[in-house]
């Protein structure tokens, strides 16, 4: 940190660079792991967010992804498997002054911690959840995960897995999430922009990041995130813009009268009939449709912000209730009167 600058308000926030946000700990992911680029994107993004290191906390569960807090020069907690959303809930509800981030993997958040994830989302806790989805258990060396495709052959499923995977975005939308987005580890700019939007949102923000595990599930997203495939396979969602993709914008998405969305050739249907993306819609139905446009990272897949709506944030509501209780009682609690608030009687001396 070198200087201080004035941001929007009158409070000076130190000017920082990526280096200020990097801890002195040696990063220990496998060489080539997608986690590196996500870490770099976060460390590069934060200096522009106008926030302070001392007011920033990263909370994680267990998994490769969950090592993340050790590498951030902020406050941090590497907790236990699946429980980060619960721990972050207590922290964020107690300390509305903090920026609380949750770093989690697909096993951490959707298997062992699925319950905490959905409840944090529905409560709209003021946290930013980054789900590193590599469709595999990395840290335990390559078992299938709740986002692995059907029939996946792994160490624990030599004959192929039998399970229908979760669609993390559909799940988050079903759990009443107010901010839902997707990005991927091959596009730093897109990641930074998505993190910025997620961070600005008051309440629970959910970001799925397609992340390559080059050791146990290499190339899982290559078909859509590879440099040469992106134009044809990624559908960028931009609020207020027609949904279209392809090198020349030749493909697009339309909304049919039965409420379903479909990929079309723009030339065939006409530009004016394309769906115009509206992330602010109260009703999550359309966002849900978009989340199901692709069955997996082998078909054209939307990325960007699917949903971004306002709803009161839990910590703020909790603080409001406390303030209301205080004003109703005419001031903060008095211990001596509390202890005498039931029926009491006095025993005299002698």
């Amino acid at each position: 940190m070198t200087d201080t600058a004035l941001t929007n308000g009158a409070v000076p926030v130190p000017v920082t660079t990526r280096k200020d946000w990097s801890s002195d700990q040696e990063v220990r992911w496998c060489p080539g792991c997608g986690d590196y680029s996500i870490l770099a994107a976060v460390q590069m993004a934060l200096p522009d967010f106008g926030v302070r290191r001392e007011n920033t906390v990263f909370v994680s569960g267990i998994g490769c992804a969950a090592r993340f807090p050790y590498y951030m020069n902020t406050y941090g907690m590497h907790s236990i498997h699946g429980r980060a959303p619960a721990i972050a809930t207590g922290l964020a509800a107690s300390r509305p002054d903090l920026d609380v981030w949750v770093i989690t993997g697909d096993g951490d958040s959707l298997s062992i911690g699925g319950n905490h994830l959905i409840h944090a989302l529905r409560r709209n806790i003021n946290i930013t959840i980054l789900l590193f989805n590599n469709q595999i258990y990395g840290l335990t060396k390559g078992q299938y995960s709740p986002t692995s495709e059907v029939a996946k052959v792994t160490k624990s499923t030599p004959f192929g897995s039998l399970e229908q995977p979760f669609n993390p975005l559909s799940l988050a939308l079903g759990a009443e999430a107010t901010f839902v987005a997707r990005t991927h580890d091959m596009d730093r700019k897109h990641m930074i922009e998505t993190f910025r939007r997620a961070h600005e949102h008051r309440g629970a923000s959910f970001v799925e990041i397609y992340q390559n595990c080059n050791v146990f599930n290499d190339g899982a997203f290559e078909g859509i995130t590879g440099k040469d495939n992106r134009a044809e396979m990624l559908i960028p969602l931009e609020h207020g813009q027609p949904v279209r993709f392809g090198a020349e914008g030749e493909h697009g998405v339309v909304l049919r009268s039965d409420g379903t969305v479909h990929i079309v050739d723009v030339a065939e249907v006409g530009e004016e009939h394309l769906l115009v993306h509206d992330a602010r819609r109260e009703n999550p139905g359309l966002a849900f449709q978009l989340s199901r446009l692709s069955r997996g990272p082998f078909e054209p897949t939307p990325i960007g912000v699917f949903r971004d709506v306002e709803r009161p944030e839990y910590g703020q509501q909790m603080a409001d209730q406390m303030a209301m209780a205080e004003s109703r009682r005419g001031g903060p609690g008095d211990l001596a009167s509390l202890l005498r608030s039931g029926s009491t009687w006095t025993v005299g001396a002698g």
Partner: protein
Amino acid sequence: MSDTTTDEHAPHTLDRVVIRFAGDSGDGMQLTGDRFTTSSALLGNDIATFPDFPAEIRAPAGTLAGVSAFQVHISDHDILTPGDAPNVLVAMNPAALRANTGILSPGAIVIVNVDAFDERSLAKAGYEANPLTDGSLSAYTVYEVPMTSITTEVSKDAGVKPRDAERSKNFFALGLISWLYTRPIEPTLAWIDERFGGKPLVREANVRAFKAGYHFGETAELFESSYEVRPAKLEPGEYANITGNIATAWGLIAASVRSGLPLFLGTYPITPASDILHELSKHKHFGVRTFQAEDEIAGIGAALGASFGGLLGVTTTSGPGVDLKSETMGLAISLELPLVIVDVQRGGPSTGLPTKTEQADLLHAMYGRHGEAPLPIVAAKTPAHCFDAAIEAVRLAVTYRTPVMLLTDGYLANGTEPWLIPDVDTLPAIEPAFATGPNAEGPDGTPRFEPYRRDERTLARPWAPPGVAGLEHRVGGLEKADGTGSVSYDGVNHERMVHLRAAKIAGIARDIPPVEVDDEGGDAEVLVVGWGSTYGAIAAAVRRVRARGLKVAHVHLVHLNPFPANLGEVLARYRTVLVPEINMGQLSRLLRAEFLVPAESVSKVQGVPFRAAELEAIVLDRLGVTVAAAPSDGKVSD
């Protein structure tokens, strides 16, 4: 009971009486008992109560399974238990009679709602013949009172439907007992007004039933006389009647106020702990945050997150919830952050006996985590003592940056006793002592913050909640290097950390009072060692034994980990060490392992507390005294 009055018309004076109200779960017996207790407390009696109710909200009406009872012991001297054997039973139906006749004292008064003794109800309770007529109750003085019919009769012209009017019969019973024991009626009438003010018809029916019960006593000439129990000579001061759960909640608030740490409760509803949540959620104006989580894991997780944020994190639960919290307790031990886990013990294993009491979680509290994971354990011994125990748990958690388990149980949670309200300025001060700046130097001499550099005296690490520039640091469940707190897989460092964590908890022994031995002459040969809610029964048994001119000593442990520093030396002084517990002998195992003494377990696991007489008999036996019908009737003691 001693009877000291001779005047025919004045009430007979008793030194104490044990009354048990029993009826169907839907009959309002808990409310009735509670009201009688409050008016007795306001009269200045010493009191102890024992609510005893089924797990089902409404078991089938009229069955033994559905019987709900409330036992209250009132006295003109200080008492320790809700009483072994009731002197008076109020039975609202045959099932309530059948479930309770076995425990009555000889010659007890039995007041039955005779209207409920029809053939169907008798059959439901499992009676083949009517006990009111077959002579099976000849050991007792039985009064048959038509409670239902009088109650409906008096409300006939009040606009209440007969079915609804009938519901007020518990107030008739309350009125009758209030007359029999000369309790003033005004406080109860005022209470009915307040409680049912919003429902004028219900209010009216309850008032009429209550007054009808009172007047029935006066005019029916059924009873030879009424009785009175004079005020007890308690220590001067202001008193409240308080349950263990309320005392726990208030103790936590008091600790929050005394430490300046806002309270955060993360919890999930479970019997018999939920009332702590209910109570704390009323007190948001104390800066109390209550969070009803999605499960117990999230409850403790959120509490730990709050502690990381510099608040007082607390979680409350009972046995099944403790199972779920174990992993997070281990994390809290590794993170070395303050946290209080309240376990209101109940019968186990599994769902067990949700509404019945047990002390079988001690070894779980002690050892129920993987790895070497010690934490301090504090146990409350009476309902009111839950207040002090909660403050002590917080004090240790904050001072030593550690999770602490506070053990209470179902009996303490719902039982009540008069509580001498403390002067808040005399409560222990608790100092959070947050880290304010660097505490070490880097290799190049620059000041830096090391999150695991310990205080030399307490071995506690610094507590540095987010928000302070320069103290940014990461903590986690992976083993940490001594001092810097960086991740370390080094075996020798791990061993050092295991020993440091253990030494920190063991060192608390220097910071807690030595055990007080209650041994009048100092020359008893038998020592009774207890912990938790057995306090009242043990102390009462000890009084009874001494009243026979015999010697016995009593030690009651509040700190179970670490033990007080002098405990080993105390145990070694006695020929016989008896350890009564509502479990299979968990403390006795710890004492044997720790001190190599032949501690003898006295075990009972029936979901109910020990009776003083049971313990008296065992102590007498170990003293080599054989007394025909060994237990005294408790005249002098209890």
